[in-house]
């Protein structure tokens, strides 16, 4: 791979209690590029994604083995601080989940708890620029104190993206961010992802093959907890090495 990789995953196994969700996954997440994770439902895409910022820690009975390196450092190391890790590796969830607070406070929350600024004007700027980057600013500029939950689904999802980028993470993980959105909102988010890769490293789970082809530079195909194929998006979609990949992409199963 020509580009430097931001995250390197090797020999990753994940167990939920006795059931195994991931088998020996090796993968690299390229810096300032979009990596798409595709595969049939239940194959472990979300599980994999959640390993990258240790969100699996909060799931009862979940065990993770293997190495996940961020800039060469093991994020499962004993002395690593999870709070700091999650500030570096942000996440956008499948279902929009704004806090039941104002639009402003949703975006300002991260900068506040991490003490990024104690100047009100500066915080306003962070909120505004995050909302602008998320393509939401113009729609909400005149109702910043309205509750985040009063927005439409697509707006809520962009609010969640603004919330994630407000603390300037290095990596953004997105778990099917468009699954609850209509085509227009989806197009907006896709456009946004394309812009975000200038500044951020992005890993995105999607069920939409066109979307994976449109937004990503690298694609990983998961099946039954195993990483079947990983490589350039173009190569995967035009000339997959594995039969299973081809079958899935062409819609023969999944």
């Amino acid at each position, binding site marked *: 791979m020509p580009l430097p990789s931001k995250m390197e995953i090797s020999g990753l196994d994940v167990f939920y209690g006795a059931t195994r969700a991931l088998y020996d996954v090796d993968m690299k997440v390229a810096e300032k590029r979009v990596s798409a994770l595709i595969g049939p439902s239940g194959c472990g895409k979300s599980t994999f994604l959640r390993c990258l910022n240790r969100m699996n820690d909060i799931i009862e009975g979940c065990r993770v083995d293997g190495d996940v390196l961020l800039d060469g450092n093991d994020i499962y190391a004993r002395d690593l601080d999870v709070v700091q890790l999650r500030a570096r590796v942000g996440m956008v969830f499948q279902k929009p*989940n704004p806090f*039941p607070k104002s639009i402003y406070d949703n975006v300002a929350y991260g900068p506040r708890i991490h003490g990024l600024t104690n100047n009100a004007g500066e915080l306003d700027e962070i909120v505004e620029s995050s909302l602008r980057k998320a393509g939401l600013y113009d729609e909400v500029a005149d109702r910043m104190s309205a509750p985040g939950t009063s927005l439409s689904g697509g707006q809520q999802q962009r609010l969640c993206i603004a919330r994630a980028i407000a603390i300037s993470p290095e990596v953004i993980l997105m778990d099917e961010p468009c699954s609850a959105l209509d085509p227009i909102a989806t197009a907006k988010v896709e456009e946004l992802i394309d812009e975000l890769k200038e500044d951020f490293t992005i890993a995105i789970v999607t069920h939409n093959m066109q979307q994976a082809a449109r937004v990503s530079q690298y694609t990983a195909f998961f099946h039954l907890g195993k990483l079947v194929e990983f490589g350039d998006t173009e190569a995967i979609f035009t000339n997959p090495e594995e039969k299973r990949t081809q079958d899935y992409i062409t819609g023969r199963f999944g």
Partner: protein
Amino acid sequence: MIEKGWQTSERATRRLKKRYRRERRLKAAGILAIGLALGVLVLLLGSVISRGYPAFVKTEIALEITFDARLIDPSGSGEAKQLAKGKYGRALRQALFAKFPDVVERAERRNLTQLFSKAARFELREMILDQPDWIGTTQRVWLTAASDVDMLTKGSLPRDVPQAERRLNDQQLAWVDHFEAAGNLRTVFNGGFFTGSDSREPELAGIGGALAGSFWTLLITLVLAFPLGVAAAVYLQEFAPKNRLTDFIEVNINNLAAVPSIVFGLLGLAIFIQLFELPRSTAIVGGLTLMLMTLPTIIIATRAALAAVPPSIREAAHGVGASPVQVVSHHVLPLAMPGIMTGTIIGMARALGETAPLLMIGMVAFIVDIPSAPFDSATALPVQIFLWADSPERGFEEKMSAAIIVLLAFLIIMNALAVILRRRFETRW
């Protein structure tokens, strides 16, 4: 093989009719049950209110009193201290005997004075202490009537029974009628019922002392049970590892919530009074005992409220790098607060109505002073009801019913508050 068009066949129509009949029967049974419950409630409230509301008024008798300086201020100093020692009882009697000059026999005279409450002379004293310039003048003043007169004017004492079975004899009835005919008898709002404390005289007894006792007791309960309960629930629900020990604790908290309250009373007696030697009959011990009883309720309600906060909110907060404590304190706890408050209010309402454990720790004494601190001897509202229910005097019956009205009013207000809170903040996500 299912026949096509079976939906409109005769058999299907019959079955449908039967189904509707069954539905109607179920509905009728439900309405009947609700009607029954409402009927019983109306009956209960009706009987309590009709018996209790007379206690909110009292009877007074007007009398021309001559505040003779020789009786009230013999030293002529006019000092409050001297005035407080005046012979007001004598002044009352003199006024009465002057009004009814043909009453001369000792027994008759005693019957006459007994129309007035024992507190009448203290009322006269208050008047003089307020208006010292009344000394040496004659004033028409209203004085509290004795309980028997009070009951008579309220119609709770029958007149048409033989004299021997009556609390007031014929002569006394005639006097009362005489006062009434001259416009010297009235019923007024009985403020003393709310501010006064218990008394041996029914016309003087009030729930002020019991209310103060309940207030201190519940204050102690709330101040201890709320933070302890919420902290325990937050730890168990959000931070504690799931293992045998926490399972064991959980099961036992649920068991504790089902323990009869009298057992908590015995526990309070053993621990707080016998072991820690805290003073008996005090609000502090009552509050601690009710705290033990309320704690499981609050813990269970809080855990349910915490569990109801959607996991997506927790994920969102973790996702932007909030620490576990921040996730709970910034997001989960505020969202769970309405549920926690509801549970707490319901727990407190239960504690307010609780009698048995307070009997065990001696909060059942006859206490005349209104408690002004948790370490004062006190009783509580439900215990006061219990005490009055036990009193032989007829006059306490309406007091008891009135105290029940007040207790029910508090309970209804608290439960309404809980409902409002729940409605108000029900779905915020």
